[in-house]
């Protein structure tokens, strides 16, 4: 895959001395959905703002579609659409006017057919003559997306697209994102909802304290850090774990009804076969077996804690 955004050793220190970005290097592939995950204040928004030209670059380079984001800012920004975190809309302006305005800002000639297409895609066509202040929060967010898409960008930045949005709308947003991906738009979104990254991203980048801790394929990441839990429910409760099973480092539940076994999917041997053989030899009768994968959330927490240590 070819990369569409290249960031090299990007640093940014705010006037107050706060170092928001500490040398970020990142390559974003064309057509992917990259989720930047991190706690509040990690530097996610600063990273996006710097790529989009809202904050000045401290040092380092950003190229977008081969264009330097500072020197060739016009060409670079033409490729980018930005949906900010806050809902910032002029309250008295009609939906269709504010969307047209955005297209004009990017130097594109007026194209009512395209504006209609974007508004229909986001289910905003019926609301085109409504003023922003008359819209619900979810609709306003759609307007922001329409504004970001109306100049036909190849890259879309979504800063916390589902912050403070109810479950239904969040699913809605995910559908919109996956539709855009089908159209070939590269999408970079920031989030602190791990389930969001898990649900829609191709790759996940973890940002903490201005550093990019890792960027990895989502499934590879899950597998790499993937600890699995095996829960074995017994037919009859036991008081203690039989001596012959001591080597497997099992935990017994309080009621004595189930055994817990933790294993690493990265390991060459998971030890499950031996465990089950030994359980059978110990004369225990199984009622049920369940496995559970560790979520991205647990991976994330362990990464951030490692980083803090």
């Amino acid at each position, binding site marked *: 895959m070819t990369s569409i955004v290249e960031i090299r050793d990007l640093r940014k220190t705010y006037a107050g001395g706060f170092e928001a970005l500490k040398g970020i290097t990142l390559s974003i592939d064309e057509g992917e959905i990259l989720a930047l995950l991190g706690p509040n204040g990690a530097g996610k928004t600063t990273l996006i703002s710097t790529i989009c030209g809202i904050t000045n670059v401290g040092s380092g380079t950003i190229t977008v579609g081969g264009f330097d984001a500072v020197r060739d800012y016009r060409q670079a920004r033409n490729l980018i659409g930005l949906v900010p975190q806050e809902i910032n*809309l002029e309250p*008295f302006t009609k939906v269709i006017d504010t969307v047209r305005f955005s297209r004009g800002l990017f130097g594109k000639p007026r194209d009512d057919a395209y504006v209609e297409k974007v508004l229909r895609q986001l289910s905003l066509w019926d609301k085109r003559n409504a003023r922003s202040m008359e819209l619900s929060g979810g609709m306003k967010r759609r307007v922001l997306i329409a504004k970001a898409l109306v100049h036909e960008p190849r890259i879309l930045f979504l800063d916390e697209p589902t912050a403070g949005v109810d479950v239904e709308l969040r699913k809605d947003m995910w559908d919109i994102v996956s539709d855009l991906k089908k159209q070939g738009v590269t999408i970079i979104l920031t989030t602190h909802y791990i389930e969001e990254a898990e649900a829609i991203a191709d790759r996940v980048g973890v940002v903490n304290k201005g550093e990019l801790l890792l960027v990895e394929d989502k499934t590879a990441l899950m597998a790499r850090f993937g600890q699995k839990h095996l829960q074995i429910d017994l037919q009859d409760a036991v008081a203690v774990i039989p001596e012959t099973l001591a080597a497997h480092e099992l935990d017994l539940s309080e009621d004595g009804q189930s055994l817990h076994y933790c294993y690493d999917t990265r390991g060459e041997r998971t030890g499950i076969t031996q465990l089950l053989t030994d359980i059978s030899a110990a004369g225990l009768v199984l009622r049920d077996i369940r496995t559970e994968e560790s979520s991205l959330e647990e991976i994330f927490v362990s990464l951030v804690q490692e980083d803090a240590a």
Partner: protein
Amino acid sequence: MNWAAISAIYVTEMHRFFRTLAQSFISPVISTSLYFVVFGAAIGSRIQEVEGVSYGAFIVPGLVMLSVITQAISNASFGIYFPKFLGTTYELLSAPLSFLEIVVGYVGAAATKALFIGVVILLTASLFVDLQIQHPLAMVAFLVLTCISFALMGFIIGIWAGNFEQLQLVPLLIITPLIFLGGSFYSISMLPPIWQTITLFNPVVYLISGFRWAFFGLADVPIGMSLLAIAGFTGLCLAAIWWIFRTGWRIRS
């Protein structure tokens, strides 16, 4: 130049103006009429003539300047402060726009509105007094330059202002007194000598004097000085704006 962007900003700003057209139109007509009632009729009946011009006609250039300057400043400062307040400047900053294009769009719209108000006041005034314009070209040039330069100043105020109070502060505390003391309603030759000298430090004096010269051929200061003053002021505002955008002061962190 990204002309499509300039026109997008300009059209959007003008749209706001036309949305409140009645308000934009009626308020200068009423205030001008009030000035004529108070200054023209009440005071004018005692002053009669200033340097051969009826007092009613004499105050017209000052009245136009008073409104044009305040309108240019308030339109331009509000025009850029409002997006700042709402947080919609992100769109301007992330668009493929040069700072010059942003300024041309916003300042152009603010200057147009001020010009519109100026013309409305002139028309209203012509209902009250017999107006003669000796140098129409110079009159238009002064009017347009004043609209542009004070819109530039308003733009700077809008960028600088951190809240709505600050937005009102400069016009209220500095601009309005300068206009009122700048010979809007009197010739500075009517002042005691010491005040005549002090008044010469007021930049607005040069504008009003030049503008009045375009109407009646009368001036408090030489017309060349007036031109120099407005050119210098415009240059100063442009330099300040250039610096603001180069450093991203109060607009880009």
